């Protein structure tokens, strides 16, 4: 297993706190991959992906939020209310979906942090909200997101009282591009017929990249990839594509469930890391524009395009699966996740028609219960694919 990343996987809160103390710098939590991490990194701030905690019951958030909404967000907000994330110096919320976007309000009241004001205006709020667009193509969207990122950058500069120059941004982009390079290499290895990386391990690699400084992660990747290349291939299992949401350190168990049933996830689309970043940031154009373009290429269940006959999620996924030799698709969709559930019937039909693969739909309540329930269904699905 990827022991070089185990420490950050298991002790991420403590690791971030130590990093802050050792380096005398700040860490900002973020909820969605639309967040321009590179701007935070260029500002000397560690971007840390905020996740749920898996703890139950959610007594704090129950006082504020109804049950019939994303269980993952409820868990995150409850963790915020319990003080689990108090070590973070700021939180970044994007317009990722109806429920995520409302985290701006609830995070503020559940985890209040006073920030200085100038005549009532917060120059650097504790919770920053980016009104990211739903469309990722079409006239005006680039300038729009650039406008949003400029305001964001201004907040960070006022937080640190340091200017984030184009040079700093370019340096940050270089680090992030190396990271995307490593991720692409790992994902290419996973497509290989002689698979050497279990999905659960690949997830750990991706997940820890969102918790730790990218340059540190990059250095560890070198030794990791070398070790992988020298491994014996895993025994044959059914090759699976996993599409889902709310997959974090707690629900990553879904990977093990699939592995124990005789399958292996060799590609995914789960709102984490390289699920949506299949390529690097363009270094031939000004860095802010380059970061904007990179984020406008996120084909996630929320984003839409200007196509008159949209099927871009399908084409995006098909391109991702080229050469992966997928035998079945498993959808692991959080309850109340409208974006993912609404696209499922179309994707299921097209997977069958255009890729010849069956799909299994699992509903996640971001709890052990639904993971336990998934075991039998995944086993039945793998049995069905093996027969």
């Amino acid at each position: 297993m990827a022991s070089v990343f185990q420490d950050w996987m298991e002790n991420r809160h403590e690791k971030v706190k130590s990093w802050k103390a050792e380096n005398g710098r700040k860490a900002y939590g973020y909820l969605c991959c639309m967040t321009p991490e590179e701007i935070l990194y260029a500002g000397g701030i560690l971007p840390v992906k905020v996740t749920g905690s898996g703890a139950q019951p959610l007594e704090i958030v129950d006082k504020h939020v109804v049950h019939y909404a994303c269980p993952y967000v409820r868990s995150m907000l409850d963790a915020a209310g319990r003080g689990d994330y108090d070590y973070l110096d700021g939180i970044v919320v994007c317009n990722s979906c109806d429920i995520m976007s409302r985290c701006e309000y609830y995070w503020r009241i559940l985890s209040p942090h006073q920030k200085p004001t100038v005549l009532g205006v917060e120059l650097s709020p504790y919770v920053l909200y980016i009104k990211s667009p739903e469309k990722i193509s079409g006239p005006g969207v680039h300038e729009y997101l650039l406008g949003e990122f400029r305001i964001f950058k201004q907040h960070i500069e006022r937080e640190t009282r340091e200017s984030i120059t184009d040079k700093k941004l370019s340096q940050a982009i270089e680090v992030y591009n190396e990271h995307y390079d490593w991720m692409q290499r790992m994902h290419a290895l996973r497509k290989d017929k002689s698979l050497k990386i279990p999905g659960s391990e690949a997830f750990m690699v991706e997940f820890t990249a969102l918790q730790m400084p990218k340059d540190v992660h990059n250095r560890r990747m070198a030794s990791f990839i070398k070790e992988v290349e020298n491994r014996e291939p895993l025994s044959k299992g059914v090759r699976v594509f996993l599409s889902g949401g709310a997959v974090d350190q707690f629900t990553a168990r879904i990977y093990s469930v699939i592995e124990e049933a005789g399958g292996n996830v060799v590609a995914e689309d789960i709102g984490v890391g390289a699920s949506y970043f299949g390529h690097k940031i363009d270094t031939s154009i000004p860095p802010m524009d380059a970061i904007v373009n990179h984020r406008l290429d996120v084909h996630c269940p929320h984003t839409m395009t200007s196509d008159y006959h949209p099927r871009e999620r399908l084409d995006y996924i098909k391109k991702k699966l080229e050469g992966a030799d997928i035998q079945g698709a498993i959808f692991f969709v959080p309850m109340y996740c409208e974006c993912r559930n609404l696209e499922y019937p179309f994707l299921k039909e097209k997977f069958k028609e255009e890729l010849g693969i069956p799909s299994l739909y699992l509903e996640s309540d971001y709890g052990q219960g639904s993971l336990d329930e998934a075991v039998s269904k995944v086993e039945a699905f793998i049995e069905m694919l093996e027969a």
Partner: protein
Amino acid sequence: MEAKKPKTAPSKKSIQTAREVWPYVKAEYAAAHQAKAEGKPVVWSCAIIPKELYWAMDLYPVFPEHYAVLTGMMRRDGTKDESVEKEAVRFARIAEAAGFAGYLCGYARSSIGHVLTGDLSDAPLGGLPKPDLIVTTSFVCDLRGKWLRYLAQELNVPFYILDIPERGCDIPFLQPGLRTALLPFYNKIRRGERDLFFSPVADHELDYTQKQWEELVKFIENVTGHRYDQDRFNEALDLSYKTNELRLEILELRKAAPAPMGVADGLTVMYPGLYTLGTQRAYDFYERLREELRDRVTQGLGVIEKEKFRLLWMGLAPWFNMSLFNYFEKYGGVFAFEPIYNMVPFPPRMPENPMRELTIRTLQQSGGLIAPSMIGQAVSTLVNAAHEYRCSGAVLFYLITCRPVVYPTVEIARVLQEDFGIPSVPLECDLIDERTYSEAQTLARFDAFAEQLLKRAE
């Protein structure tokens, strides 16, 4: 063996003009079928988008969202036989069988199920004419974009989404140039406990929104060949503006005691303004309504004579059982006001740049509509409404399938009770899927709430 279904019924109206709505609605659907027969392009669209461009470019809009409301009220072939389930349930089952979750908006499930039957005409009022294009928006909820996109994929027609990114937890961005009075509970704000902000719209937001509208014009031109005509657009916007001024006066007239018009009427008379704003017929309708209300206020006529308590209604509506809006009358209670579907003040007319005017209006809270959006907006709308309409209690629609509406309800209930001593009671079910409705539970809660309010009124 017959299923003992909950007693569901339409509401009783107090307003004469409200009784004109049903013929108005039927005429709209008949006109849509007529337009199709004449070869006019039919666009399936949604409530939130301003409609003036459609009128100006000669498209006939039809709204699956409103149609879903009808399916929630009607049974197959128009039968009154209560053992036949409502069309919304029939269609929802079809959608659910195809893999759409039961927690999705009832409108979406009904609409998707209807399309999946493969026969658009086997449905109330002759069904819907097949669209030539589908236009939606990202504002208010994610679902309306994804649902209509699915319909476009199924029906294989061109699709456009007007993107209006959600503006965060701000209180509403109301008419620029006007000052918003501080909320009554600003003095109760402890920093971090009741944070509500207001941020003016930035240039890049205005530019992006305007580009979205311009792109829509191009889309319509490309798909239908119809050209944009600024004069016709201005005509429609002019009518919208004047109609909205009438509606603002109506909002004012409704504050009288006894309430001249209740929520039962309000949720009915919203139709012309929500779906046909920008037309002469909508203007004429509200002119008649305004006159009727002026009369009623002058004469002191109310929904009920002796009001013992006034209720605020929050949320959309349980369309399959609108009689709930008359339920409290036997206790002397009246549903005095519903924020939903009413309109905020529009920006001044800019005939030399109508696109810009529409852009400002669009960014102003869902095209000027009081619709559920972000938390700050939802809370401040309810608090202001409770005060302006002198409501001593609120019924909050815990819409189990409409997350933008239901998400702030716990917060709204908390703020109303803790800061203002205004109690509330939940109604928990779907918009049109009556399988989710528990009559026993609902009426028990309502009875207890009425008793509570009567005691306080003493």
